[in-house]
């Protein structure tokens, strides 16, 4: 698709660009069409792996063969995308190949590990990070970044410090997105990668909320991890808020200080609900970057953390009820303060 001449004219009148609009092409595929492409590629990859398993059984029985086959398949996919990216069928075939190759790599690495899982997960995360750069397909970059973060989360879980993960991922997401202007030259990698990180954050939050204790109950959580995790979430939330306020030049104003005070109160109220501060960080940073789909993911993440509040066993329902009402009251008070200062705030369409 061609770029917008209207936008160029607008930037020209703001003295940001000059001369003729350069002839560049952009991929104008909406996120939900990309999601469809990704799910289609993922399904095809499942059948490709099954085909290899059925036809070349030795690949699945030997860790070395699985790793070597996975690496070769990923290399072929990268090569296909490098030389024939514009051919739609080959690009989709390469996507499915790359996902299948990752599946074989994961299988091979898992086969070699018998004692500690964490090094295997970290090895896989490093491979995924490399694939984010090497395989030039936007949907694949989302997928690889997602797997990279999930693999690191799995390693932290194996070490008994999984509550650290939402805060760490939120800090990483905020650090990259808040600096996206500086990374503009690498947008083809950074934009899909941040979508993968956001998706992983929401999935990790949901898994921490509902599944981990039942999935692998043998792993013992470190006692201090929950507090360190909560602190990391608070750092992500407060740090992002300060950065966003500074971007608008109001960090040192009365409004800025009121905003920071409100966010500190929210971070304190959300201390005992894992992932809540991280999900709110995702929502705010994504909105600030003008990425509505990721903002929606952040809102979904907030919903998952509410689910945790119900199912967590270490609190009584009475204590949770109190915490939820207090957090809700803080937010409603903030809303009332905004309406007191700006009476029309929130009405109609923005």
């Amino acid at each position: 698709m061609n770029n917008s001449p209207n936008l160029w004219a607008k930037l020209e009148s703001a003295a940001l660009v000059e001369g003729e609009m350069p002839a560049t092409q952009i991929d104008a595929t909406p996120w939900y069409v990309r999601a469809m492409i990704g799910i289609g590629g993922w399904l095809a990859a499942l059948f490709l792996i099954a085909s290899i398993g059925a036809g070349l059984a030795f690949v699945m029985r030997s860790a070395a063969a699985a790793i070597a086959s996975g690496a070769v398949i990923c290399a072929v996919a990268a090569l296909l995308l490098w030389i024939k990216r514009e051919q739609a069928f080959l690009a989709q075939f390469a996507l499915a190949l790359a996902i299948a190759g990752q599946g074989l790599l994961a299988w091979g690495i898992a086969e070699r590990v018998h004692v500690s899982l964490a090094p295997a997960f970290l090895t896989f995360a490093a491979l995924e990070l490399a694939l984010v750069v090497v395989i030039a397909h936007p949907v694949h970059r989302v997928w690889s970044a997602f797997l990279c973060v999930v693999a690191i989360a799995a390693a932290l879980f194996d070490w008994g410090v999984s509550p650290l993960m939402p805060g760490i991922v939120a800090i990483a997401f905020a650090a990259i997105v808040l600096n996206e202007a500086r990374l503009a030259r690498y947008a083809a990698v950074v934009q899909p990668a941040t979508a993968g990180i956001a998706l992983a954050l929401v999935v990790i939050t949901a898994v921490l909320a509902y599944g981990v204790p039942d999935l692998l109950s043998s792993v013992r959580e470190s006692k201090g991890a929950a507090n360190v995790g909560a602190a990391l979430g608070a750092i992500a939330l407060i740090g992002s808020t300060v950065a966003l306020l500074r971007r608008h030049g109001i960090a040192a104003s009365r409004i800025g200080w009121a905003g920071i005070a409100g966010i500190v109160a929210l971070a304190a109220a959300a201390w005992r609900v894992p992932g809540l501060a991280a999900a709110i960080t995702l929502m705010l940073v994504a909105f600030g970057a003008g990425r509505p789909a990721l903002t929606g993911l952040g809102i979904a993440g907030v919903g998952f953390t509410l689910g945790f509040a119900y199912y967590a066993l270490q609190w009584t329902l009475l204590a949770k009820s109190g915490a939820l009402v207090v957090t809700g009251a803080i937010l409603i008070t903030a809303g009332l303060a905004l309406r007191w200062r700006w009476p029309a705030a929130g009405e109609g369409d923005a």
Partner: protein
Amino acid sequence: MTSEGMPMADLRSSIFAWVEAGALPVAAVPEALRVAGVTPSAAAWLHFLTRVAFGLGALLVAAGVIHFVAFNWQALPRWGKFALVEAAIVVAIGIVLRVGPDNLVGRVALIAAALFTGALLALVGQVYQTGADAWQLFALWAVAIVPWAIAGRDPILWLLLLALVNAACEIYLATFRGAFSILFGSRGVLRALFVVNAVALLAWEVLASFGLREFAASWGRRVVATACGIAATALAVSAISLYRDENGVTLVVYAIWALVSFWAYRIRRVDLFALAGLVLSLIVVIGAWSARSLLSDERAAGLLLIALVLIGCTTAGAWWLRRVAGTLQR
């Protein structure tokens, strides 16, 4: 869409493409994103934060009240529990009457009142040990909020009502099929969910065509269309894979659903989101059909062929969707 007539993501991509081409300096990117309307203005931030504060705040308070009821605090007498939940409803409705249902605060208060109603019904069941099943709670809850959904004219209230109807149907048919087993057969839950959501989608479209504002927003329609599409796809896949659909009725119904969706979202009006969902549904169903038809003695070749079929379908679907998107932007 933005004032440029392009989706926000495309404006962002254009700016980054010009940076890569050396036409826009990196230092000018934040200002370019602001001028393009990609990053939010102070007014947009205010609008967003106010909505989040009220919406999330009300949701948390309502969740707190539901948790409180679930705790079943023995120290609090029966009348105290009822007084607490009923007071929450009275306060919420009082706010709606004071500020009106069209105001943001009034809308949020009405949604909170609808949630408190569920807590009140659960409390009745808990205190009086009525022996009612869970489906009755959801069904009664749905009926109780109908007047508020009509008065509130808010898509969220209608979606809450639909979610409650879905939950009641699912729990009812999963527990005992009763007289409805004749109508919905052995795959009752999926069929019932498909019928419920298809009727809801049809009603949503008809009411939107009359210009009712609560049904005008595309996001509400898309949520209902997604629920309907998931049920239709699951029904077709189960007909193909899990049991023999001897007379092919399920697949005929699925085909009719796909054709009607195509007519509604491509010919009558273009909704790319709904079309992407339709394409994905067709890919999944074709994949399931291929798996049943092509897997024979030559398993490896059959599996490879299925993968190629899926790649071909996805490529064709993406190509068609991009073409439709192109016609929208011309």
